[in-house]
Structure formats: C-alpha cells, structure tokens
C-alpha cells in the first residue's frame, strides 16, 4: 500500500441492530483530499471515528500513514489531526491555553507548545483574541481554533468531520481557504461533508457513502459524467402550474423529473442542449405558464446523489434546496 496515506478494507461496525458501517473500503493517496459525502447517518462520522482510533470496528482493517490503526493506535494518534463536528475547545481556557494544552498532550515541550500555539493563532487570525477565553469567541472563531488544534503537530494526515456544518457562508469560505492552503502544503486530508459544493470544491476524489457503504467513487467530474446529460430547471411563478409544466416537460425527459413543491421547481434530465431548452420555453409559453426562472445546467453532485441513492442528500428539504441552488448557481 505504498503511497496510500489512509487505507481501509471491509470496515464493519454495528450498533445494536444498526449496521453503521457495512464493509467500507477506502484508500487516500498521499497528499490528496478525499471527500466523504453522504447524508446524516450514512456512516461518515463512524468511519472517521474508526480511522482516528476512537472506535474499534467489529471487523476490517485500516492503516493511517502506514501504521495499523488497531495494532498501534497510539502511534497513529501522533500522526493525525482531528477536527470534529463540534468545536472541541475548552471555552474557559484562552485560545493560547487551548492550543498549548493540545501541544503538550502531543508530547511537545511546554516551550515548543507555547510557541506553536502563538504561531497558529496568528495564522488563523486569532492573534488578537489569543488571551481571551474561547467563551467570548464567535462560532467561526471557535471552529478556527478547533482546526488549529488539529494542526498543532503539523500532522501528515488530517481528518475533518463536517468542518463547516453550522457556519455562515462567509466563515465557510474562509475555512475553505485555510483547508486549501493546508492541502497545498502536502497534507493528506479526509473530509466528511453533507455539502456537495464543499466536496466539489475541496476534494480531489469523492466517495459517496450511504447506509454504511461506499456506493460510488471518483472525481466530481467523473461522477457527474457517470449520470450523463444536462438538466433543464424550471421555476414556475404559481404552484398551480406545476402539473401543467410537468406535462410539458415530460416528453423531453431522459430520466425521472424531480419536483420541489415549495420552491415550485422542476428539474428534468435532457439531451440535446440549447435546442431542447428553446422547445421547452415555447411549449410552456403556449400553455400560458408564467416562469420565474429557467436554465440549462450540467448535473450537480446533488443529481449524482439522487440518481445513485434514490433519495436526496439531506432530510431537511430547506437545506437541501439551499445547497442545490448554490451548486446550480456555481455550475451555470
């Protein structure tokens, strides 16, 4: 397995009746980013917990930086950085104290840990807040502090479990930039996310996870090409027109159309590009359907997910739509 910074074979973990991991195989080449993409409960976090020694799998085998996770967990711990779903910082310690503590627990000397803490605080734009307790930090600042804690020893392999969940768009962008810089410096990264846009932007390679299995693997482009074609997306002005619009679109559909009632949006896979779009507009117009928005776009990872699993990426429809919109906007 030379060149693989993270490798896992046949990871299985059950909690009672639930098979959280049902034979997960992964390999992440050194210096690359693997995005683990999937809805809540797909097994992303469980995978990360196994690879970071927090959880013993029922069966399977994994190595991180060439070290066996089950046989030498403590060696693995000295080679990884982990930033979880929560900002796991002590809110009653200052930013500097938090990072210094983590450094000392990575077995650095107190002096080195302190110097590294200050260095990281500056790098993460927290220099001014270094001597304030983390309780006074904003959500974005806490996430940055948490990420800094994962970087204290400059680990060759990093695990970020939904690093931007709950962050506003501005802070999310800022964190993406930090992550891109890290990857530019050669860190191998395994990133879990529910945000397709995030995987699209940060990951070299994407593994789509559902029900404890990797159901698809490849670059974002490859996954999109896999389901082929383009999409016509129509937003009608009035919800009453949805059925009529669907009727007009169906003859052009190369696959199952999807309808989002509350956003009055219909998405249809098509072939034939702009000519189809012109046809569709004419037909909608002929039926007197007023449209707010119409466009032709390449498939997004959202579409990939939908066609692979038969369900959307997230349970929460609102959030789903928001992500879909952003992704669509970026692609068009």
């Amino acid at each position, binding site marked *: 397995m030379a060149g693989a910074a993270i490798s896992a074979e046949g990871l299985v973990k059950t909690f009672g009746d639930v098979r959280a991991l049902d034979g997960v195989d992964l390999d992440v080449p050194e210096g690359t980013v693997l995005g683990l993409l999937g809805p809540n409960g797909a097994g992303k976090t469980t995978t990360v917990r196994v690879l*970071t*020694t*927090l*959880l*013993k799998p029922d069966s399977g085998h994994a190595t991180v930086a060439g070290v066996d996770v089950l046989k030498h967990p*403590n*060696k693995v*711990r*000295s*080679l*990884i950085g*982990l930033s*979880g*779903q*929560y*900002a*796991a*910082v*002590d*809110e*009653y*310690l200052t930013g500097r*104290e938090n990072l210094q*503590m*983590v*450094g*000392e*627990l*990575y*077995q*650095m000397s107190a002096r*080195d*840990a302190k*110097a*590294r803490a200050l*260095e*990281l605080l*500056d*790098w993460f734009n927290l220099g001014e807040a270094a001597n304030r*307790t983390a309780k006074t930090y904003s959500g974005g600042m806490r996430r940055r502090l948490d990420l800094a*804690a994962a*970087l*204290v*020893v*400059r*680990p*060759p392999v990093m695990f970020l479990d939904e690093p931007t969940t709950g962050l506003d768009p501005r802070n999310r962008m800022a964190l993406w930039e930090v992550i891109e*810089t*890290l990857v530019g*410096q050669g860190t191998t990264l395994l990133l879990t996310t529910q945000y397709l846009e995030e995987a699209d932007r940060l990951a070299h390679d994407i593994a789509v996870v559902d029900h404890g299995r990797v159901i698809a693997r490849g670059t974002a482009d490859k996954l999109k090409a896999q389901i082929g074609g383009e999409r016509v997306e129509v937003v009608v002005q009035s919800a009453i027109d949805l059925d009529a619009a669907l009727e007009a679109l169906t003859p052009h559909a190369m696959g199952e159309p999807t309808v989002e009632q509350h956003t009055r949006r219909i998405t249809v896979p098509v072939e034939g590009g702009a000519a189809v779009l012109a046809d569709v507009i004419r037909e909608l117009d002929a039926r007197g359907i007023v449209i707010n928005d119409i466009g032709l776009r390449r498939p997004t990872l959202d579409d990939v997910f939908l066609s692979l699993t038969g369900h959307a990426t997230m349970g929460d429809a609102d959030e789903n739509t928001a992500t879909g919109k952003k992704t669509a906007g970026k692609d068009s």
Partner: protein
Amino acid sequence: MAAATGAIGAAAPGQRGGVLQTLRDSWVVAKRNLRRMTRIPEIVVFGMMQPVMFVLLFTYVMGGAIAVPGTTDHNAYKQYLMAGIFAQTVTFAVAGASAGIAEDMTKGLVDRFRSLPMARSAVLVGRTMADLVQTALTVVVLALVAFAIGWRIHKGVLEAFGGFLLLLLLGYAFSWIGALIGLSVRSPEAATSAGLVWLFPLTFLSNAFVPVSTMPGWLQAIAYWNPFSATVQAVRDLFGNLPPGQVQTEWPMQHAIGVSIGWSVLIAVLFSMLSVRKYRSAAG
C-alpha cells in the same frame, strides 16, 4: 503561510510512554481543570457555601434536638458534628467530577483527548487531582468557619493532620466514582443528579449526624460498615471530638483508621480501573 511550515515542533513527536508520561499528561489536564476553576469561581464558592450552610443548620437548628450519648453538654454536638460535615463535604467531589467529565463528553473534548497520543488515564487522573485541590480548599474554609463558631481540635497537630489526610483520601476515592458516572451518563445535568441521588442516603445512613445507636438494629449494621462511618469515626478520634465516655464495640468502629484507609483505597482502585476502561471505549 510561513507559520504552518515553520520550524517549531516535530511532525511526529517521539513516543514516550510509561509512568512519567502518565504523570506529565495528568498534570497538563489538572492544570487545565484548575484554570477553569479560576475562570468560574462561582463553582468553587458555591461548593464552599453548601457545607457551611450545613454546619450552621445542624448546629443551630437541629443540634439542640440531637443528644450526644454520654454527655449533656450543649456544645458537644458541635464537636461531634464536624467530622460528619467534613466527610460529607469531601464526598461531594463526586458531583464535580461527574458533571465536569460529562460536560467534556458532550462538548467533544473527550473525543479530542482520546485522539491525542496521551496516556489513557490522564484525563481522569488530571480531573480527580484538580477536584482534590478544590476539596482541600473547601475543607480549609469549612474548618475556619467551624472554628469561628466554637469547634476545636483537642489533639495534637500530627493527629489532626492525619485526620485531614483521611478525609482527602476519602474525597479522592469518591471522585473516581464521579468519574465513572460522568463517563456513563449522557448529560452534565444527569451526571449531577446521578452523583447525588445515592450520596445523600449514604451520608445519612452513617454516624455522620446522629449516633448509630439510635437507629433500628438492621440499619445499625449497615451504618457501622458504611465506608463513610469509618472515616467519620477515625476523624472524630484524630480531632479529639469523640464524645467523652463513649465506648464503641463494633469492629469497624474500633479499627476505624484502618477501615477508613481500606475502604478509600478499595474504592479508588476499583473505580479508577472501571473508569479508565470506560474511557478507552467511550462513545462521545
């Protein structure tokens, strides 16, 4: 950018291991918990107020109605009571440890610690050591208050010192029970209740506040063998606070110092082993 590629720290620090690493890691965690106490002084202050209230309530409200065997001196109950209050106070370390560790679990800090190359017992040892410091502070304040209202030590400095050591040992042992509770429950609130729900009966089912000889026979047996009672009896003895003329015929009362140490060591060893095992597999 330069910072992330800077020269400080090694990418993969050398492995240490062994007792020295455990001690150092525990100290790092203890330092963290002690810092927290200075940042949230309310916890320490309220922790001190509770036993002070108990002293005042028992002395002035209930003390008059409780007779100490072998004496009619009104002041005697005050002397008798203090060992019980001290012992109850040190065992409240259970609540601090359980709530603190439960909070670290829910906030993801235990996951962070478990992902670090640190000694597996250090998070818990560090926590219980910090709790011990808080307990010692509380005991000092409590002793001063008790002194102010007339409680006195009637024996030598060495004996008194021994009495305080027994108390702290008991408190330390009980904080490991708290550690196990903190790792086992799902929220800090649950941890606080789970820490106190059995502790109150345990402290009252003893010689801490009333003479055991006033209880029904079957209760007496429990009370005499209660780990709590041995410490209370030993401390009363070492402080010279035993009621004059009282003769204890029960074995655990006659050998109170040994029984007290025995219970504390047993509890500490048993619960630290269970807690560390739980910590290794903790699902946060």
